[in-house]
């Protein structure tokens, strides 16, 4: 299980990286390597050139502005896990990251790598989708931004074009009256989930649900916003009945797949259970960020 030969280039700036990407059409970016290197070792991928971005210090920053939280593509899981800034500005993100893989992998894996890899069961893309995060992409042709909804196209498929790299992900500011829930089900700690559910509930001053964001992941070929279910929560005072109904609709819409780990019908039932639990958590008073 040894990789096929490749060339290696270590870059120190984003410009250097995108210049190299533009020049070599069989180049890929090496970030944390926690998804790419297993694929290389299995010879499931054999790129001509690895562009190692690990020493681009500009890419490793966590920034906070009134507009929200900005993560450089090279921010690693362990930084999110322990950051007090993240705890304050996006508690969901921090909570979710703790479910990713294992200690050693969290020391290396990056938000950019996870996003670009786009595993259907990955937590980070699902959180980004729930939070309406914005992805900044750079290439020799310039910079563009796409929403999370547009960025993730399918299993291991994203909006990244040849020659393009992901440089940052911006999470909009966390509203004052927001409840959140995160539930996933994996066979063992650290495994990719068989299914997961994320819920954000934003309330107005009267305690009416002003906005809802419901996401499933792991069930289908990518994380999905469950808009029909969201719709039935908007503008109402939340009741047990409404939450139950939302979970049911969410399960109907989660486009579950069958694979060796679980059949589709289990995944959709699981998603309904997880979604209801996430909804209940989000609706519980202690999960509202600010009282």
């Amino acid at each position: 299980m040894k990789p096929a030969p490749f060339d290696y280039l270590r870059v120190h700036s984003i410009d250097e990286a995108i210049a190299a990407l533009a020049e070599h059409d069989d180049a890929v970016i090496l970030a944390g390597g926690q998804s790419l290197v297993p694929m290389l070792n299995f010879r499931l991928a054999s790129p001509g050139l690895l562009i190692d971005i690990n020493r681009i210090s500009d890419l490793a920053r966590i920034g906070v502005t009134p507009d929200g939280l900005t993560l450089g593509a090279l921010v690693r899981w362990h930084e999110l896990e322990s950051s007090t800034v993240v705890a304050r500005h996006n508690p969901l993100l921090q909570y979710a990251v703790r479910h990713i893989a294992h200690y050693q992998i969290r020391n290396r894996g990056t938000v950019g790598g996870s996003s670009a890899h786009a595993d259907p069961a990955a937590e980070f893309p699902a959180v980004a989708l729930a939070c309406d995060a914005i992805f900044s992409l750079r290439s020799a042709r310039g910079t563009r931004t796409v929403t999370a909804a547009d960025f993730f196209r399918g299993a291991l498929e994203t909006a990244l074009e040849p020659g393009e790299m992901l440089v940052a992900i911006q999470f909009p500011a966390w509203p004052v009256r927001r409840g959140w829930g995160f539930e996933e089900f994996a066979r063992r700690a650290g495994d990719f989930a068989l299914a997961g559910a994320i819920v954000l509930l934003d309330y107005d001053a009267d305690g009416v649900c002003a906005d809802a964001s419901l996401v499933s992941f792991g069930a289908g070929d990518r994380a999905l916003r469950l808009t029909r279910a969201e719709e039935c929560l908007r503008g109402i005072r939340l009741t047990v009945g409404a939450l139950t109904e939302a979970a049911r609709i969410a399960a109907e819409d989660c486009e579950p797949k069958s694979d060796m780990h679980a059949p589709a019908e289990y995944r959709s039932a699981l998603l309904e259970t997880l979604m209801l639990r996430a909804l209940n958590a989000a609706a519980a008073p202690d999960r509202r960020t600010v009282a």
Partner: protein
Amino acid sequence: MRLSAQTRAAAIGLARERVEDLRFLKGRGHYIDDVILDGMLHGVVLRSPVAHARIKSIDTSAVLAMPGVKAVFTARDLGETVLIPLRAASLPGYERSFLQPPFAVDKVRYVGEPVAFVVADTPYRAEDALERIEVDYEPLPAVTDWASANRDSVLHDHAGTNVASSYRVTRGDPSVVAGADYVRSERLRCHRHSGVPLETRGLVAQWDAAQQRLRVWGAAKVAFANRRILAGMIGLPETAIDLIEVDIGGGFGVRGEFYPEDFIVPFAARALERPVKWIEDRREHLMATNHAREVDCELQIACRADGTILALSGSIFVDLGAYVRTNGSMAPSNTAAFLPGPYRIPHFACDVNVFTSNKTPIGSFRGPGRFEANFFRERMIDIAARDLGIDPVEMRRRNLLTAQEMPYDPGALIPNSATSPYDSGDYALALSGVIAASEWDRLHALSGRIVDGWHHGVGVACFVESGGAGPRECTRLRLADDGTIDLYTGCSTLGQGHETSFAQICADALGIAPEAVRVFHGSTTDLAEGFGTYGGRAAVMGGSAILDAARAFIEQARPLAVGLFGSPNEELVWRDGAFFSADGMRQTNLAELAGAARMNGRVLDVEGAFNNTKLTYSYGANVAHVAVDIKTGRVKVLGYWAVEDVGRMINPLIVHGQMIGGIVQGLGGTFFDEFIYDEDGQLLNASLADYLLPTASDFPSINCISLEHARSTTNPLGVKAAGEGGIVAVAATVANAVSAALAPLGVGINTLPITPVRIWRAAQESMTTTATSGSQGN
């Protein structure tokens, strides 16, 4: 020799910290991939990507021109077909020959079967070359299970059938269920999984052309047997081959059998006259190293209303995989033989059916046949107890063999093997022990109840576990110049700590400190004869051989001592590692004896052996407390308790460690580990990301008690096998606990592994069917 009491405190029974730990903790272990020889080349195996196909052609022409590539071998290079023989006792039908050649000849029969071997200067370049070998396969229908639609597609054309073996074993007359108030039949299934040691297999072979000598590093388990097999296949005398054991990263029964690579690597080294190393990668391991445990079962139990079991009968259907491997008879025959277990079941019968399929061949994995049989039987007992309204513990107590019934002859249940009576034990004692330790009554009150959405259940299972019999095992003791002892054993060590425990045995046998004994193991270079380590035989056989060697050692040392004392008529007494004069006033110790030997131009070097055809039987009982979330199918094991009587512990630290390790491995086998094949015979989960092994966060609460109640009567140490008792009753216990939790839903677990999907589906079905009563299958 006059007997005299040893004054030194016994080393046997001490929880002595392990000797081998010192090197392992400092990163100084020496495992097979750490072996580096001058001029060494690296080989990789090209494996079949298809389950069943005719090989139309193999084109290796592109490969030899590649950088670093030295050679490529296929079946054609071996000349006439050689086959890997069966090592263990045969089964009826196996004479039709389902044996495996080192390289596939004409046909491939499972995904992962070796087709070619490329040797290059680095493993990286050897793998580069693999991609350039062209093999033209003509696909054939894959047989993926014994009942499959493709069962007409025959794997071994010369045999003309996929039925490798079929026979019946009986005791009493199971057709007579007269007096039975209750009869019930069930189908049960244990799934395909395996030992998966953390270190994959590997070998280094070197051919010394000048001396016409073949050296092979990486031996494990049964070095002497493998040497005999290799000698026969490669056409060398046994004495021209050394199989050398290095440190081993776990075996669990699967490592150290003779595999295709055990021929291929030495063959390549000899052909190239260069050392060749082969290290299995994890993907290969999962498709090439023995699988285990896949067996279906139809079982009928007949009882009196009071729970007395009258008869157990049925059939087992074993999926052997593509070939009969070296111990390919063990799992089927042991599954049948262990079905009656520790109970007094007067009438018993089992039809054993063994089928070939286009999957990786199976072999022994820790507790072969027992894990499966205990699961089948203990489920049946729980089902019967529930139907009869009898407490499951009480039902077992009523049927367990008693101490007065020992030794107990279970009958001739294994073809071509002598019967071996259960040696000793008080089976109810172990059951009472685990009932007390787990506070069963408290848990039982919770069983079947829902707390915070979790369905609680508690389950119990009993087992008897054989171990430790022939062939003959040998030990050599050699007195070093400084008066310490070098102990060479034919047993290999795969993590069991023999360097520590064997020193303890020898220390007591000679009356010296264990620190004064250095243990060398498992290599054919150290001893003329030996056998190996499996089935819990090392302490029993290897340990008893030490006693014999120690006796011989003292007798050989005596003339030297007589010389030193200078008084031929004096009666010398051996005590505490020294000879004493009769009055106890003068003594000569081992260092002086070594000096005397040196002066005489001799070395004190003796061999001892132990031969035993009778098995030891350890026994025990386990309890599990689980909580089940039927919405997700999650099972939490809240507590696991095990009691096992091993007769006598050489080193309690090690015995305890074996037990806990076995239990967690068994929990993995119950919940996670599973080889998943599709209908084309493709192995879908050949990575550790998809083949799930238990991790540190899965099973936090494991409690073990080892008893030293009933010593074995088959060996002078009185020990019984201790390596397998941990694992063998785990699926049985957990399945009973989960079934107890779900009993109010009418759900029982008769199929392994216990996955979330399986639980969810069973719960789902029970809630949608109105007639839930008695629905047990899932």
